[in-house]
């Protein structure tokens, strides 16, 4: 008896061994065809004696044989069966080509139980040689295929493979991008490291490093000078000197250093601080050199105080108070408290 094979455009051919085989997309079908044009239960392949028939199961997209729609038709070798848009080549082959076909009477004689199997086609019993190749041949029936549904690979690679392949391609693309990016970036890095700009900047930095910390410590910061009289009486500031820095607006220009010296402005300079006062220093003058807003990076001043003389010897006339000069100086870098004058006097 001829064996029916249906050959899809891709994948392994579908072999039919059962008398009735239902084809369709539904997983319960014996042959599952994963094609959108195939109905869930599309067509039945049926063996009738020596022939194979296809019976349409009321499919949505129809069953065709050599392009002709059919409800039921016999399948012949070489025909094209089409379920929906899925073409299947019809092949009718002799079953188990490795077997030796013998004539019916001889085969019936060598049957072990002395009678031909009712299921075997009596006209063409199938015999296979035994393992030792003896002349005694035993009839065997063609083994029925398991009931497990045949899954036909008719719709290209599975979705998982497609997705994984896409991910791999994307990752390979990203790898290429990273590789190229690394090459370019390394090139830029080497170029920057060797650039004259980098060399000059680092050389300049070496030159300026000794003053870096001084600048951070506030050696360029101007602060406001405030004087606080902590004594019980008034105090006269007899001399005041200061250094004020002007930050240049443009790069490449140096700071402008301005000095203030009260003696250069007025020989009789005197700044009186009332007791307990807190005086922000600001000096006005028509002479620009003698004008000072009280801000500076460094200040110095001295005050004069009269110190009581030691007690005179008995009978001696009282002595005059002694004039003492007391100096104050410091940095005005940033916010600071008052310069306390006269503490403990």
């Amino acid at each position: 008896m001829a064996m029916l094979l249906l050959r899809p455009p891709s994948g392994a051919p579908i072999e039919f061994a059962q008398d009735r085989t239902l084809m369709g997309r539904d997983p319960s079908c014996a042959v599952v065809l994963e094609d959108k044009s195939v109905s869930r239960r599309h067509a039945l392949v049926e063996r009738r004696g020596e022939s194979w028939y296809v019976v349409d199961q009321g499919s949505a997209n129809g069953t065709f044989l050599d392009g002709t729609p059919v409800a039921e038709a016999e399948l012949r070798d070489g025909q094209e069966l089409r379920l929906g848009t899925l073409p299947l080549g019809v092949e009718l082959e002799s079953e188990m080509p490795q077997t030796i076909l013998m004539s019916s009477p001889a085969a019936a004689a060598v049957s072990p139980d002395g009678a031909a199997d009712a299921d075997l086609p009596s006209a063409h019993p199938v015999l296979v040689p035994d393992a030792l190749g003896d002349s005694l041949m035993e009839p065997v029936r063609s083994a029925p295929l398991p009931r497990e549904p045949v899954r036909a690979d008719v719709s290209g690679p599975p979705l998982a493979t497609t997705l994984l392949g896409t991910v791999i391609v994307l990752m390979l693309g990203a790898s290429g991008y990273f590789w190229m990016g690394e090459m370019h970036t390394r090139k830029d890095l080497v170029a920057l490291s060797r650039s004259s700009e980098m060399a000059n900047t680092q050389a300049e930095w070496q030159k300026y490093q000794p003053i870096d910390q001084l600048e951070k410590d506030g050696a360029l910061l101007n602060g406001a000078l405030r004087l606080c009289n902590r004594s019980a009486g008034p105090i006269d500031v007899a001399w005041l000197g200061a250094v004020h820095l002007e930050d240049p607006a443009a790069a490449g220009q140096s700071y402008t250093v301005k000095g203030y010296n009260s003696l250069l402005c007025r020989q009789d300079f005197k700044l009186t601080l009332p007791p307990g006062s807190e005086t922000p220093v600001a000096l006005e003058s028509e002479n620009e050199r003698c004008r000072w807003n009280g801000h500076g990076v460094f200040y110095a001043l001295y005050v004069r105080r009269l110190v009581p003389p030691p007690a005179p010897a008995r009978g001696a006339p009282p002595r005059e108070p002694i004039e003492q000069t007391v100096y104050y100086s410091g940095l005005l870098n940033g916010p600071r408290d008052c310069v306390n004058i006269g503490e403990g006097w």
Partner: protein
Amino acid sequence: MPAPAPRRRFPVSTVVTLALLPLVGLLSYTLFQKWNATRLALAGQSAQLETLGARNAVLGRAYDVLQNRKFQICNKSPYPLHVSWVSAAYSDGRHLRHFDSERCPGWQAQEIAAGENKNLLLSSTEEGCNWNGNVIYYAMRFSKETDEASLPFSVAGHYRGYDRDCFTVQ
């Protein structure tokens, strides 16, 4: 009776792509790490260059002002000088410091003979009194001891010295 649901098995192509996936993933990750490290190094270098450049611009303007020099008095007058008080803002090699002779009992008034050059400094264990003689800003009170009188002077300013390295008294 409905046939049992078909057993799903991975085709060979899926198994191959699954096997390739970690390898390609590892390759991508390794290359990304390398690229990222190089990118960060370049960004770091660029940032460092920018920072140094900006800092150099600030310090370049201040370079002349913050020169730390030795406080030297050159007495070119025919009279001796009497230095009663000195104050200096200076660098101790790292930080900005301040010295005020008024706060240092170890300080003694300095006499500078006519024609003499003298560096002022004070070695002391007292806090704020160990002055290495460096100066950036200064203030000083000195007197010129003439035959007739003592002429006092009070000065303050940014130390440059009249000839760059000396406070010269004519």
